[in-house]
């Protein structure tokens, strides 16, 4: 796989890892199925982004936001993902706050 092609899809190692974690331990995954899943996941991003982008365009907004993506997911039938994404974003923001506070503490210690 050359560099140019590699940029257009999600990395196969990450895709394969997620597939493995979704299956029982005795399951095997063919290389071709990982490649197809890689293409499907990439197409998923394009498809949902297109829907979100259309909405922004209609509403005269330039920036595709996280909320637009969530809206597009629900609009396209993936509303069962919305709750898990909400929890994930919450945890991510909490983790960012912790890091921010740690940095502040360290900077304060240096100044003393």
């Amino acid at each position: 796989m050359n560099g140019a092609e590699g940029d257009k899809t999600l990395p196969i190692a990450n895709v394969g890892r997620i597939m493995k974690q979704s299956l029982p331990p005795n399951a095997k995954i063919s290389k071709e199925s990982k490649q197809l899943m890689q293409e499907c996941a990439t197409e998923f991003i394009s498809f949902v982004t297109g829907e979100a982008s259309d909405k922004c365009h209609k509403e005269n907004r330039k920036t595709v936001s996280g909320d637009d993506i969530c809206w597009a997911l629900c609009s396209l039938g993936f509303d069962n993902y919305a709750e898990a994404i909400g929890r994930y974003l919450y945890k991510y923001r909490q983790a960012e706050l912790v890091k921010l506070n740690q940095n502040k503490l360290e900077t304060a210690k240096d100044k003393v």
Partner: protein
Amino acid sequence: MRQAGAYSNLLCGGISGRTGPHSLPLARIKKIMKNSSEDVKMISGVAPIVFSKACELFIEELTRRSWIMAIDGKRRTLNKEDIASAVIATDIFDFLITLVSNSDATDANNTVIQMETI
């Protein structure tokens, strides 16, 4: 539940520990979003993060549905025909029908594809 590890490990490195807290690289996701359409000019910082989770959920769901097809065929190896069958069987995955038809995955299912697209 399998997912518990993914976000309870958010601070110390998520699934791989090497890609940072997210299971998919944000820069690559952003590139794919930009490639999807001319209209996509600006993307907020959180949008790729939303996608990193959404893609994980998508891959999990399609993988599990494909596995059911493999089990039906009395196999323990997931192959691309299983993914194609799962796509055909699931309404919300209709957007993938062209993609799975174009790959060799549907040689065995050609009649089904022809019926679907007419």
